[in-house]
């Protein structure tokens, strides 16, 4: 049980407690703050997986933009926290059963496979390689351009949909 595994367990606790807080809490703003906590935990995972560029992108995009979007949507569409406004719908029990069953099936299958062991050292310069791969026509240039067009379409679409009449 070395230091990396202890850090992994701490990060798992942070991410999972955040996720549980999202789905359980009745107050929607609290759920949004727990979601931010979960995102930060997942960003810590990315650092542990030697993908630090993606960890910073996760914090920048998820915590810095998507969480703010969600909080704004909560603030702009506020139902006053009336007690008879139940948070869960009638099928919550079946949803719990389905999610738990899926989890059990996944874990049973996962633990039976003989996974490859990771190599200890990571080649340096992954960031430069990533940058070059995104603009290399043989590699990921098409994906990059399609993603930027997708973002443009989403931007225009969101502005048009949410506009005041």
């Amino acid at each position, binding site marked *: 049980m070395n*230091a990396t595994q202890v850090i992994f367990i701490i990060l798992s606790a942070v991410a999972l407690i955040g996720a549980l807080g999202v789905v359980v809490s009745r*107050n929607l*703003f*609290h759920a949004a*703050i727990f979601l*931010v906590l979960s995102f930060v935990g997942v960003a810590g995972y990315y650092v542990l997986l030697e993908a*630090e*560029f993606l960890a*910073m*992108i996760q*914090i*920048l995009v998820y*915590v*810095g*933009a998507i*969480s*703010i979007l969600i*909080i*704004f949507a909560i*603030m702009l569409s506020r139902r006053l926290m009336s007690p008879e406004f139940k948070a869960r719908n009638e099928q919550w029990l079946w949803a719990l059963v389905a999610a738990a069953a899926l989890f059990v099936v996944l874990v049973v299958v996962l633990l039976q496979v003989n996974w490859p062991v990771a190599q200890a050292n990571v080649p340096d310069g992954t*960031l430069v390689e990533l940058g070059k791969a995104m603009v290399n026509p043989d590699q990921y240039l098409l994906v990059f351009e399609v993603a930027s067009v997708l973002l443009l379409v989403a931007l225009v679409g969101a502005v048009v949909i949410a506009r005041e009449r």
Partner: protein
Amino acid sequence: MEFILNFWVELGAWAQGLLYGWGLPEWAVNLISDIVGVLILVVIGIMAVLIFTPMERKVIARMQDRPGPNRVWPYGLLQALADAIKMLTKEDVIPTRADRALHMLAPLIVAIPALLVYAVLPWGPNIIGKDLNIGVLFIVAIASFHVIALIVAGWGSNNKYSLLSAFRVVNQLMAYEIPMVFCILSVVLFSKTMSTQGIVEAQTIPYFVIMPVAGMIFLISAMAEANRSPVDLLEADSEMVAGYMIEYSGMKFAMFFIAEYVNMFAAAIIISTLFLGGYKFFGLENAAPVLTPVIVFAKSAFVIFCMLWFRATFPRVRFDHLVGFAWKFMVPLAMVNLLLSALVVKIPVGSANVEPWVQGGVMLLSNLIIIAVTIFILNRAARKIEDAPALKRIVAVER
């Protein structure tokens, strides 16, 4: 003599040797030296508050031809300590129907991102918290974390003015983050690395001389991100009555206060690292590396003086003008600057060795052309507004 010249690095090595001599295993020595490093950085951050609070009030007061605070010890230099004692002795009030958990959480998560940035700022050739190879991306990500803390503060007070101020916070901070990121990208294109120490090492000529447009845009955006005047509508008394900080008193208000000044100092050091050459000073950092923290302090003090100068000089900007300025003026300008720096860096790639001052000269020339074209376009737009018939009618009626 060698010990004195290399003082900070030698001090660290001697302290670690001491810990090894006490028989501690390696992981314990690393842990203790990391914790001591963190404590030193936090103390430097908070000392910034103690130094810059009285400095701000004295400097602005002198610019307005009045003495400023001069009661607390010679020349009023311990004013921050007096403010701290005052704030500690105030009653801690939580509004009745406010969300207690959120109300108490907000001051905590406001100070944390402000202090986290100090981990990647270089104080010398080998004196840095941790030289991440994505240093500037870390700074941008932490700056975007700051916004969530302010929303939590605004929401948790159960006060309509607080909530309205939280909306405006998000608007302003998100709008000014984009020109900031474009300017950082221009700098990264020139220095070909994202680590802050790499950027300082790559500046044979300070980038402010090469790209004054990017430097000014970054300065204005950093001031807007730190809620400084003339863009501080969110906390001005005549505008939003202290904005998201309305319902806070005592030590919690002090945390917001500290977070703002720590943020300002961090922004000044970032500007001096990215644009003014960091710890370099015409070769002094090679001759006497002990002076590099002093050089960093001097440059960031100059940048803070410029920020205080802006505060004392300009009136406050109206909010829609503020946000329109960011989106309609600074984003296109920063984008044009980014395109030009990409062209200047990448085009002479065939001939491998281009002198850095040739590249810098071409970039400076293109920046001056950008400034000339911008002023020309603004002049034409201003003349069109002046010639508008509606304005002529109003002016005629007045006469």
